């Protein structure tokens, strides 16, 4: 698996449910970061030349290479806008999140 996915977490009910000391599975994510976004990136795949600059520079690593197209893991995108700002082809637009 390239990226960890959101995993359900069972809250401990007994002291023995806790790990011995502060240690836990690497890449274990009970929470997403989707709630952080005011704007969301929308990709214009026709304009995109797959240069991967957005893939390289995303602070959260949420841009995925998907068979020659870029895809965004919206569970963990925080909507910072770096991808849109850095895109040499202006192929990514930041659009207000709608509830």
């Amino acid at each position, binding site marked *: 698996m390239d990226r960890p996915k959101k995993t359900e977490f069972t809250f401990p009910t007994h002291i023995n449910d806790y790990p*011995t*000391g502060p*240690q*836990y*599975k*690497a890449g274990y994510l009970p929470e997403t970061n989707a709630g952080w976004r005011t704007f969301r990136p929308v990709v214009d795949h026709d304009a995109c030349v797959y240069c991967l600059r957005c893939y390289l520079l995303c602070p959260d690593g949420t841009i995925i290479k998907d068979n020659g197209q870029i895809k965004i893991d919206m569970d963990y995108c925080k909507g910072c806008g770096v991808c849109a700002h850095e895109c040499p082809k202006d192929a990514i637009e930041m659009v207000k999140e709608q509830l």
Partner: protein
Amino acid sequence: MKSNKIFISGDEAVAQGVRLSRPHVVAAYPITPQTITVERLSEMVEAGEMDGEYMHVESEHSAISATMGASAVGARTFTASSSQGLLYMAEGLHYCSGGRWPVVMMNANRSVALPWSIYGDQRDSLSLLDCGWIQVYVEDAQEALDMIIQAYKIAEHKDVLTPMMVNLDGFILTHTYELVEIPEQEMVDKFLPPFQTPNKMSFEEPKNLGFSSKPDDNTEFKYQQNEAMFNAVKVLKDVDQEFAETFGREYHGMVEEYRCEDAEVVLVALGSVCGTVRVVVDKMRAEGKKVGLLKIRYMRPFPEAEVKDLARRVQAMGVIDKDISFGYEGTVYTNVNSAISKIDKYVYKSNFVGGLGGRDITKADIEEMFNKLFSGIENKSEEKVEFFSLNVETND
């Protein structure tokens, strides 16, 4: 058992115990009076008698950090310090116990500045009782060696996983040469199997260690740490028993009672001064006085049950403290007192603060302490904290 006795110092005995325990990583910074231990260990590594990595760290803070790092990948580790160095480690000491890394360290008990003093007292380790380490105090070089081996077995036990500090009095033990039996490596290997822990980073099972926890969980981790310390009570007794069966030397677990069977008055002490108390107990017993010694071996976990048990059987208990918590009393006394307060009986108590900054505690001093306890019972004297053998008059 084949005997292999050599005439070595307490520091060297510790180094022998470490060698026999086969640590993977030793990280230490020199400080008097611990230095000989780390010198011997580096010589052993140089001579190929020890396989581990010897790290020349640039401070005690880095010594404890490096041992934690090595422990966090599953390596058995050792460090050693004393006094100012131990205090410089203080952040790491708390961190290490919280991380549940069973590092073993030797502390050469030495006074704490200011004024500067390289001589022995126990203010360094006693001021760190709350840092979550198991603390044992030894009486001679043999016990120092044996307790290093035992320490790994106790600290690394799955129900404990808590670091352990083996304390020996600076100079009085670290620099005194005596006959010490060196156990066979083969037997130590059988007694102390390789270190296994669930609490490590590995490529088979990658982990994130040392995380932060919010108020929702932090108390639970601390509860668990406290539980582990209480688990150590049984484990350390079992380990001592198994050690006795394997090597023929027993240290009686949490405490050792010396001639307490029918004692009326006992002195409670830690470390090397216990030896001198034994000599005085023998002398006074010969004179028909019912005196005894309670040698406290472990300060954490604290031998509450053992102290209570003895308190029920005697009329007076005096505590020798090679430390003082300024503005109150000696730390050992505070701990002993707290245990005694939980029994339904009056025991006359007194606190003798002595041996500070290396001042000698003589046989005459100890005899005087016993006599003060006897007269305290008889005259129903006020219980007090007394600086023993001051050389000058005071305002009191």
